[in-house]
């Protein structure tokens, strides 16, 4: 009597809930996921905007546009990146941050260089540790990265005793 077994694993979804942009280093997990079965991109489009503990991002090219859209903040007038952000925009960003509870902890910049982080920190007298590029968040905070597989395992025989 021969025991038959079929076991198929299929990774159906990977969910990463964090701030990463599509090109950020935090998407390393995408390699683990079969092409076409990745659930993160649509989720990410909706959730790239998550800001933990009241931290606020300086909206840039797209990382926080979902968030801004959701909360009706007009991002069109904002600088595309920290590098070309005029001081008044910076000030507005910090003011925005300060108006959110716990936001005094810091400010997120998008695609910022080390120099950008330093300048913002000193210009607005925020601790250097509290001025971060948003993409650094991938390794921090209570973010979840979950993978889900669906499998089926059916036994049986091809010979009847």
């Amino acid at each position: 009597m021969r025991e038959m077994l079929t076991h198929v694993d299929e990774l159906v979804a990977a969910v990463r809930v964090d701030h990463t942009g599509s090109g950020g280093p935090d998407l390393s997990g995408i390699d683990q996921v079969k092409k076409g079965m990745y659930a993160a991109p649509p989720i990410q489009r909706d959730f790239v905007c998550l800001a933990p503990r009241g931290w606020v991002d300086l909206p840039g090219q797209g990382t926080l546009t979902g968030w801004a859209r959701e909360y009706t903040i007009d991002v069109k007038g904002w600088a595309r990146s920290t590098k070309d952000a005029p001081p008044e925009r910076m000030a507005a960003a910090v003011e925005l941050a300060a108006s959110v509870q716990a936001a005094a902890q810091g400010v997120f910049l998008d695609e910022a260089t080390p120099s950008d982080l330093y300048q913002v920190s000193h210009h607005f007298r925020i601790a250097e540790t509290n001025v971060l590029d948003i993409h650094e968040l991938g390794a921090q905070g209570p973010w979840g990265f979950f993978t889900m597989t669906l499998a089926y395992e059916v036994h049986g025989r091809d010979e009847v005793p």
Partner: protein
Amino acid sequence: MLPDRLEAWAPALAAELGRVEADVEAEMKAQAASMVRRARHGVRRRTGRLARSISGPVNVRGGHIEAKLYSDHPGARIQDEGGRIRAGRRDMPVPIGDVKVHPRSVSGLFLLRAKSGKRFLATKTAGNIRLWFRLMSEVNVPATRWAQKAHERTAQQVPGALLQRIHKRVT
């Protein structure tokens, strides 16, 4: 102008994010249950034993959640994939028509050999012969794909369902 909603939302978000894992697990359990229902609907039923044998265990290991469609019924694989079943020591009684019982539960069965050489298990009541089973050494079982179809359909549903759950949690 900062919307009021954002002010309330920001401090609550961290706590809500902490519940996402439980949400994802709950959704996968719901999807597994749904996969089981689809599978049971897709099997060819006679006694209902195969359908009852189908389960949908969910295992969680760290950040990985596996939902599985499972059956250890002897006919599970062959009905899903189709194929040829061979008899062992004795020929197999293959039910005829809508017969859904095991030969042991039919009293008065006797072996009837037809002129064609085919062999049947039959009963005789008031002069009428009823054929219940045909004895065969090999049987071709057509594939129903009950497991594969349930699996594929569920796989299509999972990403959207997860998205909906997570969206509800964090917004």
